[in-house]
């Protein structure tokens, strides 16, 4: 099973080309000069990052033409290749920039580009790019997780509108969203996959209600979104009626090498070493305890390998081969490494992992604190990141994909 090994004249070389290194320097310089220090401090310190922080960084990148790293130039994107996108992602995450929200840029935009009409492209794409519209993803429902095609949210055609009723769930940051893209049921008299349509819904529409779901760490980043007789103009349907499943699958096919989260893993590994170099155990620094340090070594080795695997998949993309099941491998391994890192960060704290101090997650908090400031977010991060092997296609679903498409099982 060779991921990348077509025939070329030059020899194997795993380092970035001179051109790629120049690009990396350019990205680094831009981040150093333009990422506001207070936002960076929040991200690196694991503090709450506000909507304004996300939007501010998005608009800063927009001014430089970089807010939509994956877009082609014809829609106003930078037209970067897969290697450039990877370098940009890693540099941003490693430097402590807030992540660009994927829902508009990476999820709905490619569908609008491929299947939307000209009016939809002109209306929505510039506003995604500028950061004017915050998007949310309306896929999962209470009864439809891995078996997404069983979704039940109804959209009934009445003249020029669809009347929508139903519920979406696990909707990340819907409380900030201006728009939501939804898979809805427009026909029930056929196979479930053939009765689904893809609608763009204004969150300000009458009948839309957002209810926060408090998660295991006490935070509220996900929501339920309820739709009660919400009228959606037919003009907001992307593509054909009942063809939504095809578009959703196209979107899944756009799964990408960013799945591995290499940049965030690198930052968290550094953080882990930083913590272990400050925590004390048995009269020495924790990082001098071979038993704990071996755990760090193990995860660092796995990350080294995954970074190379990611670059092999990027090389595939550069050779115009679409990664399919390879993206599943990156998702499984990347999320497992992320989870190991969050667990080790928590374990490094020992008893200092226990205090629950959510007020100290707000930047500028100066009240009483048990333990070091860096300890505050770590247990919550561990708890929260159990999500990583569940979301975006659970790791079990990813293994099904690998078994089917790479092993023919």
């Amino acid at each position, binding site marked *: 099973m060779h991921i990348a090994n077509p025939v070329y004249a030059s020899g194997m070389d795993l380092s970035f080309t001179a051109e790629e290194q120049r690009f990396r320097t350019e990205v680094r310089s831009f981040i150093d000069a333009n990422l506001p220090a207070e936002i960076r401090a929040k991200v690196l310190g694991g503090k709450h990052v506000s909507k304004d922080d996300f939007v501010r960084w998005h608009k800063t990148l927009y001014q430089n033409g970089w807010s939509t790293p994956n877009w082609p130039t014809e829609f106003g994107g930078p037209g970067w290749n897969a290697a450039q996108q990877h370098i940009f992602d890693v540099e941003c995450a490693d430097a402590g920039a807030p992540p660009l929200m994927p829902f508009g840029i990476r999820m709905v935009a490619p569908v609008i580009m491929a299947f939307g009409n000209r009016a939809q492209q002109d209306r929505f794409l510039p506003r995604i790019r500028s950061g004017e519209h915050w998007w949310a993803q309306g896929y999962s429902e209470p009864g439809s997780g891995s078996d997404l095609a069983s979704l039940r949210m109804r959209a009934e055609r009445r003249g020029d509108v669809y009347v929508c009723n139903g519920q979406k769930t696990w909707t990340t940051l819907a409380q900030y969203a201006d728009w939501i893209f939804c898979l809805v049921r427009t026909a029930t008299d056929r196979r479930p996959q053939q009765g689904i349509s893809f609608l763009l819904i204004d969150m300000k529409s009458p009948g839309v209600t957002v209810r926060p779901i408090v998660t295991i760490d006490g935070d509220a980043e996900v929501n339920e979104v309820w739709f009660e007789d919400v009228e959606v103009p037919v003009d907001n349907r992307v593509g054909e009626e009942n063809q939504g499943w095809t578009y959703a699958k196209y979107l899944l096919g756009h799964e990408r090498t960013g799945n591995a989260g290499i940049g965030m893993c690198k930052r968290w590994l550094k953080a882990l070493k930083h913590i272990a170099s400050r925590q004390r155990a048995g009269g020495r620094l924790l990082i001098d305890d071979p038993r704990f340090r071996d755990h760090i070594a193990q995860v660092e080795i796995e990350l080294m*390998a995954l970074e190379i695997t990611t670059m092999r998949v990027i090389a595939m993309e550069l050779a115009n081969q679409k990664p399919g099941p390879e993206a599943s491998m990156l998702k499984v391994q990347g999320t497992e490494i992320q989870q190991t890192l969050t667990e080790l960060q928590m374990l490094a704290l020992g008893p200092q992992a226990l205090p629950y101090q959510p007020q100290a997650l707000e930047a500028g908090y100066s009240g009483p604190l048990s333990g070091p400031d860096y300890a505050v977010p770590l247990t919550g991060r561990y708890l929260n990141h159990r999500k990583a092997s569940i979301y975006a296609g659970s790791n079990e679903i990813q293994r099904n994909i690998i078994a089917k498409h790479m092993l023919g099982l």
Partner: protein
Amino acid sequence: MNFDFTEEQNQLREALSRLLERGYEFDKRKQIVASEAGYSREIWRQLAELGALSIALPEQHGGAGGSAVDTLVIMEALGRKLVVEPYVPAIVLGAGLVARAGSEAQRARLLPRIGDGQQLLALAHDEPDNRYELERVATRARPDGAGYVLDGHKTVVLGGSAADTLIVSARTAGEPGDPAGVSLFLVDAGAPGVTRRGYATQDGHRAADVTLTGVKVDGDALLGPAGGGIALVEHALAHGIAAVSAEALGIMAVLVDLTSSYVKTRKQFGVPIGQFQVLQHRLADMLMRVEQARSMTYLIATTVDSADDAQRRRVTAAAKALVSQAARFVGQGAIQLHGGIGITDEAPVSHYFKRLTIITLTFGDADHHLARFSDLLDRGDRGDRGARDV
């Protein structure tokens, strides 16, 4: 970045595959393993003809001036067919050491003959009590006129029974455990005072225990600087690790193929067992381990001759740890999914598993290299970007 093999490398892989497809069927391999010498001189001659023995040797001594990536291509192909010929001990370790450390005279005398398949080398370094610790050398080399006299015991010398010349590590100074004071000597395997007891290893390869009793060598037997042997051995073993990693990769790829084919045909409860999700997921995990091992094998092949010693050491340790862990996972999974047939002598899968297991134990096991990487850990507090974050 470029993960592509060159046209020449692809041709080499194809030529090797053709050669082994004909000359290394499973039954043929069994005969070779059972033979007196434990390897086939005919196969060795064909490998020489193909240029596979000399590819990484310098051009002025009949080689092609190739790199560790060329060796990777060869080792992966040898792994796929479970080739037992002593490529790693004679070529990767032995010839590699002479090419890197030898004097002009030593190189001119040995390398062309090695590349032609006329001469076999082996590295006699390990001793009964050293486990994987390179510095624990007790064998002595006492100055004697212009030469030396060697005394000591060497154990599990890979390829040692067939070797014409042994590269023996011996102390010219210091005590066992000292990193300095070990020198390397080229010793004729038939020299008076050298006794060898050859035997088969668990995977069908050959090794020997070697006793040196008052073995006299000339001054020009010294290979590399006096007292500087450990660094040379370490670098040779890094090449050895790169090579067996590639071999393991070939073996693991075959095991995933064999196992996924098997579960598609083996029926229980009226269906192919490959329809059971629990088996599918185990195979998916095996495949992911293989791809991670492939990445590390590419990394070490492109790092093993790096001038940055610290980076080379870290990558070597990381590669051997990860590849050994992957080998264990993939090998054990392949046997388990084959069921009872997997532990029979007639099933190829059992032979692949044995070789894979021996590779995990060769040149340091996973724990040894994990500990090494851990000791060499880049602690990250260099005040660089993001070093102060959580």
